[in-house]
């Protein structure tokens, strides 16, 4: 049985019956799978930031805004904390520009090691707050 979200309409496909089983670990597997899908140079990895230090909603919103602008997304397109850059259509050059936009907006400096771990809007927001906190310390 296809348990795919209703968002796909134009591509019909006969899916294997056992596909539904993958849904259980969806969140974890999505970030892992996407990291292998396109292998952008700014490689995405599973998020290393835990919910206990999740960023403020305002920070997430600012990140969403920067991502929207960079990818020229229409207003109605959904961008939220869990949005994955690659799934939004960001290639490696976009991702680097997004990081640059974040540095400018928040007056921080992102090292390549950290930039590499940014896969979602939430990852970016969490990293930003960590860097701001370290700056103040």
């Amino acid at each position, binding site marked *: 049985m296809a348990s795919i979200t209703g968002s796909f309409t134009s591509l019909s496909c006969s899916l294997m019956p056992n596909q539904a089983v993958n849904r259980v670990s969806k969140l974890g597997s999505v970030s892992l799978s996407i990291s*292998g899908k396109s292998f952008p140079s700014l490689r995405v990895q599973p998020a290393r930031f835990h919910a206990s230090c999740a960023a403020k909603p305002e920070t997430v919103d600012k990140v969403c805004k920067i991502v929207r602008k960079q990818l020229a997304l229409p207003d109605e397109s959904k961008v939220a904390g869990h949005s994955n850059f690659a799934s939004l259509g960001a290639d490696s050059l976009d991702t680097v520009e997004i990081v640059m936009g974040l540095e400018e907006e928040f007056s921080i400096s992102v090292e*390549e*090691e950290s930039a590499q771990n940014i896969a979602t809007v939430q990852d970016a927001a969490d990293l930003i707050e960590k860097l701001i906190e370290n700056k103040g310390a």
Partner: protein
Amino acid sequence: MKFQCLGKQLFNSSANLPRIQLPSPMEAHLWYIIPSEVQSQSLLNQYAEILSPCEKEIVFEMRDEELRKRALLARALVRTTIARYQINSHVSPRSLKFIKNVHGKPEVDWQHCEQWRPLPLHFNISHTSSLIACGVTVDSPIGIDVEKKNRRLKHNVMSFAQRYFSKHEVQVLSAISDPQLQQQEFIKLWTLKEAYVKALGRGFSDAPFKTFTIRIRSANKGSFAGNSNFEASEIVVDSFDDSMDLTSDWKFVLMDLAGSHYAAICTKKDSSIQGIQITPTKLTVWKTIPFVHDECVSGTAAVVIISG
């Protein structure tokens, strides 16, 4: 399972993929597809049928139709390309299994591909909204990158270069007064740097862009050239931290592809060839719509070697 007709059923096997010899160790193959040329829904369905369940899930979770199509074509291109090199066999591209190396670079998992004869091939893909490419080599790591020639950054080119490129590259770019030419040279440099890091296969943070310089230089005059009109020009990479990798080990090809894109390919030199003399990479390029049409475009206007 949907089978519209017996003829379509054959598409799912690799019978409709003409077999081809692997490139020799000094060669590279490049296969590319133009997404806008694939409009047939039934063809897209056939591509979907050769994907793994995991790949299908990723593809179909994308909300945007164009992105979904692009992701689907990229996976179909990789699978069909590799299947072509399996001579004397009709194994389906669907049965290929992939694994990621410790840094996340995808490779074929030959151990788990039943019925496939292991091949010493390496591959790498790159995609833009209007072109998806897959490079193949034998016995050498490969990294490729393609970008639209007229891609505009959201940032100012020089601000971006100052933040991410090396000092020498910034100098080369800032010496170009025409903004359009500067933009083009920037894109060329970007694709070369991307291709290099992808060939290294160790992730972006292992070779931050600032820590290495790509130079396009004339082999004739032995001087540095900002542009690359010289037939025998050569692309080299210098690293500030040479312990990371022997940068003299890598060679590049930069080309104008399909009139619309720059494409860079980075491969490792044959270590048995010593000295300064560079053996140019023999490159064969195909434009493809898998299962439908392949066209060898090397030597045509679709492939203009800029350097390397």
